[in-house]
């Protein structure tokens, strides 16, 4: 006989920067969980050998079966584990229900259309990144950028951009094959979709509530994201004159780069071929000869070695920087966002994936069937008010947590937060935006130190890097009452950190 769920044990696996959670829901006095929910299994980078012990630990902890596996979004730091340990997961993990955001439902024609377009952008990013990366090793690249007394810096800065770009590209899509062929979406996602044994597939529709799930008595799951906005955009497209809300965060699809790799064929070049000139060695007419002369003169000026610093052969590939960031943000905003509520107590656990500002804003525009508990507040606001556990979105970046529409609304005195940041395993460029100091301070304040970071080593709370995060956490925890200190129990072992949310 199923009992009401009154607690949830949360294990955060600690491979490195990236999300991998196991949630075990129990009723009072239960030895074994009634429902096991796994959320993502990713890390920015890891070898198969290093991943294996974690995978085996997950299998051990779940006894080889989870009731549901949720993939929030297709980024390496959320799915790489499946690729690295495909065999282990395939052979030893059973999934009763695979949960994916509705944006993965390709049987929907609109989703399909959009995904194709998104796919083209990813391909363009992979190709531009690959090309740029190859060029950075060329002599010409150095001749162009390493000029003058401080040229080395400029040259190195550009190589740095190329590296950062590679990191972002690899987060979104498989790198180009050795033969220069585009491989496509992330393998980890394919493993989840095609290889891991499952009974059912469920697409999570934003604005709906999952109730009466077997094994989850007393639990309701609200689906807050991904935003419906872009779908609205598409739906309205056919009708002239009708307007829709312009959503900058999601309208990244086209204009922000028009790299040629996105085009299907050269028919779409901006000019007719006749405008392109090259040397015509058969030139006989006066016109053809003068054309040759003009061409040679311009080309000579462009390619003269002493003018190399003025060449523009590679600058256009830097457009990929903008594209990469927009694609990444776009994908982050397509994260499935779950607010898990203990019905009786009203306590909420928030799992927003890597949702960024655009997504947070959209939660407040969801047309819920009901209002908040007081009958007036928008349900989203109410859910945030009641949040006692927050999985910090997007590894403590500035955009990962909205301020007024998010942090400020999380007013519960007993808030606990968990963040998946690890300075030992992270792309160097991510350190430039993570953690955001203001957010860090706010979280420390809101949680009174009940703040669990995947690996707090190397993190500081101040600009000058003098106050360690761990010291600050300890200081704040010390200020809590004895009772509260006792309640806040965190276990850490070599595989995961765990904390149990009391839902009663």
């Amino acid at each position: 006989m199923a009992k009401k769920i009154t607690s949830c044990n949360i294990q955060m696996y600690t491979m490195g920067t990236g999300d991998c959670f196991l949630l075990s829901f129990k009723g009072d006095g239960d030895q074994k969980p009634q429902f096991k929910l796994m959320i993502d299994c990713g890390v920015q980078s890891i070898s198969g050998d290093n991943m294996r012990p974690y995978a085996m630990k997950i299998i051990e902890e779940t006894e080889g079966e989870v009731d549901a596996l949720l993939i929030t979004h297709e980024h390496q730091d959320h799915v790489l584990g499946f690729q690295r340990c495909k065999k282990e997961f395939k052979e030893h993990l059973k999934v009763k229900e695979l949960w994916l955001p509705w944006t993965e439902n390709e049987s929907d024609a609109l989703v399909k259309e959009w995904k194709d377009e998104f796919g083209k952008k990813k391909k363009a990013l992979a190709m531009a990144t690959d090309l740029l990366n190859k060029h950075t090793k060329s002599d010409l690249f150095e001749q162009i950028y390493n000029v003058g007394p401080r040229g080395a810096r400029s040259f190195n800065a550009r190589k740095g951009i190329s590296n950062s770009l590679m990191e972002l590209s690899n987060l979104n899509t498989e790198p180009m094959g050795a033969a220069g062929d585009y491989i496509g979406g992330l393998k980890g996602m394919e493993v989840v979709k095609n290889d891991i044994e499952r009974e059912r597939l469920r697409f999570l529709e934003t604005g709906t509530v999952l109730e009466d799930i077997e094994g989850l008595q007393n639990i309701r799951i609200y689906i807050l994201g991904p935003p419906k906005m872009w779908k609205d955009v598409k739906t309205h497209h056919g009708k002239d004159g009708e307007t829709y809300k312009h959503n900058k965060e999601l309208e990244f699809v086209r204009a922000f780069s028009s790299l040629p790799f996105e085009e299907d064929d050269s028919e779409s070049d901006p000019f007719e071929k006749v405008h392109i000139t090259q040397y015509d060695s058969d030139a006989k007419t006066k016109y053809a000869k003068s054309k040759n002369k003009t061409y040679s003169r311009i080309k000579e000026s462009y390619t003269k070695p002493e003018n190399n610093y003025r060449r523009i052969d590679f600058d256009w590939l830097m457009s990929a920087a903008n594209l990469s960031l927009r694609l990444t943000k776009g994908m982050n905003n397509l994260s499935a966002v779950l607010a898990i509520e203990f019905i009786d107590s009203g306590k909420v656990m928030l799992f927003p994936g890597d949702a960024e500002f655009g997504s947070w804003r959209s939660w407040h525009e969801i047309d819920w069937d009901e209002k908040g508990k007081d009958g007036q507040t928008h349900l989203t606001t109410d859910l945030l008010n009641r949040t006692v556990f927050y999985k910090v979105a997007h590894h403590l970046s500035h955009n990962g947590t909205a301020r007024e529409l998010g942090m400020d609304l999380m007013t519960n005195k007993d808030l606990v937060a968990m963040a998946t940041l690890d300075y030992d395993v992270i792309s160097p460029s991510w350190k430039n935006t993570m953690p955001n100091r203001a957010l860090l301070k706010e979280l420390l304040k809101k949680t009174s130190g009940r703040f669990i970071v995947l690996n707090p080593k190397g993190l500081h709370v101040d600009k000058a890097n003098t106050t360690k995060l761990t010291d600050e956490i300890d200081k704040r925890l010390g200020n809590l009452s004895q009772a509260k200190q006792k309640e806040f129990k965190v276990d850490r072992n070599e595989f995961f950190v765990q904390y149990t949310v009391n839902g009663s």
Partner: protein
Amino acid sequence: MSKQHYTPKPLKRKLRGYAFDPSLSLKIETSDFNEVTYRVPWEEDLTPGPKGEYLEIIDFDPTIKNSEGEYGVFYKGVDLNDPYILAEDGLTPSDSNPQFHQQMVYAVAMKTIKNFEKALGRKIIWREKAWGSIRESYVERLRIYPHALREPNAFYSPAKRALLFGYFRSSPSEKQLHMPNSWVFTCLSHDIIAHEVTHAILDGLNVYYNEPTNPDVLAFHEAFADIVALFQHFTMPEVLKSQIERTKGNLEDQNLLGQLAQEFGSAVGGYGSLRDAIGYFDKEEKVWKRITPDTSEYETVIEPHKRGSILVAAVFDAFLTIYKARVADLKRIAADYKGTHEEGDLHPDLVNRLAKEASKTAGHVLSICIRAIDYCPPIDITFGEYLRAIITADCDLVDEDKNHYRLAFIDAFKRRGIYPKGIKTLSVESLRYSEVDINGNSAEMVKTLTRFLKDYSRIMKFRPKRKDIFILTKVHISGDSSKVGLHEKMYEQITMNEDFELLTGIMTNDSFQKFGMNPSSYTKEEESEKPTFRITNLREVSRIGPTGKKVNQIKFSIVQTARLMPKADGTFRAGKVDEEYMRFRGGASFIFDLDTEELKYSIRKPIFDPKDHSRLDEKRLKRQYNYQYDPEMNGMSELERYFDLNRHTELQEPFALLHNH
């Protein structure tokens, strides 16, 4: 062309182009005046490209594969001396012909250069190279690449001394605003071209203005580029008249003159132009609204374009105030006349008269803005200092401010909360920089300088060639075997110590080595060491004001650089050569009056603490450090932060990513 000419050489070359950009040719209400004929100087030696005295347009598109499958093709370079093209005043405006694109960038860039030279009173010289001999360091032509990028972006690259224009597929937010997925070329927008050329010109005038040391610096670059592009609208009579008709002479109503980059704005998903000096489009209500000046913006807005817009709005506001005052009489006459005339459009004669006043006023305002550059400190510019420069420059050239131009400027800046630091009241008298106070000690130095600069002026007379101007000037600064240069002359004056410091704003006392400033190579064995400094921007200026008053001046700047490494405790140590150190500069701009043979102004921004010359100006240093090193404070975009393009690192491309939208 034949050597024998029976007709005199033409003064102008006529080239057709868009007044704004291709999108306005598609709208009935704007198509009539959107095609204009640009009149640019006749360049005898213009070769295909075009390549002339100032510009070299190279239409290399690195994004298209050539017949061998490699990236990079050349589009045919236009020959503007082709008789067929000459006979037709250039190629017909068209977005599908790259040769027209080349013609368009050439025409607008040349026009901008010439407007500048007129106001500035001297020839434009591009930013020099930092390597090679004097001769090798000269950059004769600005490169223009009309099809360099595949994104909604265009920028000036100081490292390449080049303009890179992008093209992209449009993504309008509403279909009726722009055709979705159509090609948009930034090199076909008058505003974008004028804007980017202005960046290049300004960088040639002062290299330190693209060094972001406070939130105003990059914003100033952006604002200045916008101001030039905006006021250039007023030099096109057809455009001006149409807008005067449309607004019935009330230029503070929505009109094209105050808007920038129409096509670009709607193609990237906006409503209308990219920027607007007087209003904005309210997305909720779907109407255009006037901006009301807000004094808090200057305190809070940091992103360079947005911050720049505050300055643009102030200048445009000053223009409108002056224009309204100048046409008040015409309006009264028209109001009387209306009684006997039917309601509706303005009388064509009135339109002409209003247009004339608007054009004249715009010309004056633009000249004032350009001239003021010479009166700014050489480094770390702020909007407040720019206001002081505007007032000072105008006082020099126009004795009596009958039309209250200066008050209009002061008022417009005041309404946006832009106040210069360190002045007690806001009046013309207090804003105007005071003339140099020469005491006994500095008199000797000024005398030496006077002799030197007079000599320089004599040698520079009648030098029409930019290359000669550049080389001779450089030789005058650095000296050669036959002559002691200005740099060494200044160096010799350092003995007077305290007074020299006060006059120049650079540190010459013994403390300088603590701050990573190198000792000079001039130092003779028996002397104690003295610091290096740099002399830049030496130029002779001769201007004629609107009232006919002539001003003949020589200007130059002196700049000193401290190289500092920030330490964890908030202090600094001297930076080493291979470190990523922070540059903290100080110095002054000098203006020397050739007619009175006096050093007139020394516009300073000292490197040292005014109360203790052995210390750096720590207040300013702290501000600069906080601004450059804290991405949460300096308005850097996520893109810049992610790719680690800090304000203090040297990518040498401050505008490349800044212009991303």
